[in-house]
């Protein structure tokens, strides 16, 4: 391929063409500099930007986590190397262990169960014929996904307030809400809010996967007399297994990183008894409210390692799964 193109150029070396495309010789003169190796200069801006503002900070974070740095006070300026002390402190910290548990439950319930199941159900329905109004529903689900997280957080804190929408729905069933739900049930409120916010991604992914299944396969199963459940269990499910795996990994990674939504509803403390203090809130809380940036850095490194493992799992699944 590469060689073929070089040959074309050699053939063209006479430069006798007077085509319209060759009329601006200034750009071409300038551009001849970029021929061959020079083209790699095009990579430089991207590498500098990512190197300085993404890769270096992540590496720097590892260094900070090995010191006793603080946001304010004497150890903000002059700090010293303390080895793995912060990691020891981290795993002895009740709040950190709590945030691990909360994050894990939050991810399983809101993403793997809530978003994935609801998304799959909606994708299945949007593939069905003769169902009216499915476009309106999927569009609203999509809009809930694209609204900035801060705005959804604000809306959900109002909806779950003492006189909010959910409280008035509950009162229809005779359940009297005495305090704001985000106060009495902080964890469940962020789980529900995150299902609300993130379902669209799974829905779109599964819709795409279902569209990849040829129609004759459904029809063959129907002719063979399979019930809807059998068709789903033995025909559709195996065919979208890779999509399910990819969806699980990606929504897990994103749910680990969710910040704006729980921050707006519960604040960095994560609500009463830190019941909703997921990992990201813990990091923010330690760094900004407790000024303990070394500990926050250690926590964010542990998180990074876990996310990295998930990303590698994702890349692996892309490589080793044959597409239906």
């Amino acid at each position, binding site marked *: 391929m590469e060689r073929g193109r070089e040959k074309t150029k050699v053939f063209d070396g006479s430069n006798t063409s007077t085509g319209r495309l060759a009329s601006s010789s200034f750009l071409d003169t300038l551009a*001849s500099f970029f021929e061959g190796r020079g083209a790699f200069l095009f990579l430089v801006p991207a590498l500098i930007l990512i190197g300085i503002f993404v890769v270096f900070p992540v590496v720097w974070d590892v260094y900070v986590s090995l010191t006793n740095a603080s946001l304010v006070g004497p150890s903000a300026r002059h700090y010293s190397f303390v080895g793995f002390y912060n990691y020891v402190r981290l795993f002895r910290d009740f709040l950190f262990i709590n945030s691990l548990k909360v994050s894990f439950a939050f991810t399983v319930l809101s993403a793997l169960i809530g978003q994935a199941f609801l998304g799959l159900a909606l994708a299945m329905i949007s593939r069905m014929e003769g169902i009216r109004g499915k476009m309106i529903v999927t569009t609203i689900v999509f809009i809930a996904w694209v609204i900035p997280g801060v705005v959804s957080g604000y809306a959900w804190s109002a909806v779950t307030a003492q006189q909010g*929408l959910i409280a008035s729905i509950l009162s229809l069933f005779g359940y009297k809400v005495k305090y704001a739900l985000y106060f009495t049930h902080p964890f469940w409120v962020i789980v529900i809010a995150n299902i609300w916010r993130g379902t669209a991604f799974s829905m779109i992914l599964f819709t*795409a996967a279902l569209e990849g299944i040829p129609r004759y396969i459904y029809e063959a199963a129907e002719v063979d007399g399979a019930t809807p459940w059998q068709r789903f269990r033995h025909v559709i499910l195996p065919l979208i297994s890779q999509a399910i795996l990819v969806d699980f990994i990606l929504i897990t990674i994103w749910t680990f990183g969710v910040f704006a939504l729980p921050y707006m509803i519960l604040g960095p403390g994560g609500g009463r008894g830190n019941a909703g203090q997921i990992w990201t809130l813990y990091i923010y809380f330690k760094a900004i409210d407790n000024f303990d940036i070394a500990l926050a850095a250690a926590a964010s490194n542990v998180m990074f390692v876990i996310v990295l493992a998930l990303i590698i799992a994702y890349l692996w699944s892309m490589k080793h799964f044959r597409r239906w």
Partner: protein
Amino acid sequence: MVEKNYALTAVIYIFLAVVFAFFIGPILWLILSAFNPNASPAFTLPSHFSLVNFKKLLVPVGNVIPLQWILNSLIISLASASIATGVSILSAYVFARYTFKGQGAMLTTFVILRLVPPIVIALPIMILYKWWHLIDTYTGVILVLSALILPFALLVAESFFRSLPVEYEEAAMVDGCSRFGAFLRITLHLAIPGITTIWLLSFVTAWSQFVIPLMILRNPALMPGTVGLSYFFGEYGRVDFGRLSAFSVLFSLPVVIIFLAVQRYLRRGIAGLVSR
């Protein structure tokens, strides 16, 4: 085609109705309260629709008028999206049209960086920016947001350039164009719809960013809309729901419009996550 299964159809309609109510509830409350002069968390129709909450966006909070935050978002997002798109086009072209050592590893790195949660970068950036004197500067926010969006923009641009046939460029080169000239005049021209999409998606990504500006912008006059909203919400004892909702509606509007416009490309991009 299929004999109608009425029970199943009924279940599906009930399910859709419940899902619809669940998803529209918070959005509807947001819109209703934005036009309600006596807004509260309660879900009620306003006694009369009024724009008084939107007018209040011109009344200062502290020493900043809320509309300023939307303007700040506009400056930050325009700049970050443009830098990220411009830089990504240059390198994506090299990735799509050349083969070199370490290419695969670099692309894999971009995939990884694209998925790293922003808070992992926000914390060290805040410490580093103290030394680099970039706290409370637009330069600082714009640079880090551009870098954050870049891996995504680059991967999309790369697959887009790859999908454009190389033959057009070769034809231009036969006609006397240099390779770079062919890129400028042919490929870039063909890529305009793709580049527009990348720019728009970068723009909305920057627009919604929260944790990074939250940690590096402390001066209320510089905050973008996301941080402004949280500042607005947290700072005062008695929350003015009408004003906050009006601000939220105004702030979400551009994002919703852009996303609905590029929906088709977005769906295709997500489909590409499964099969590559």
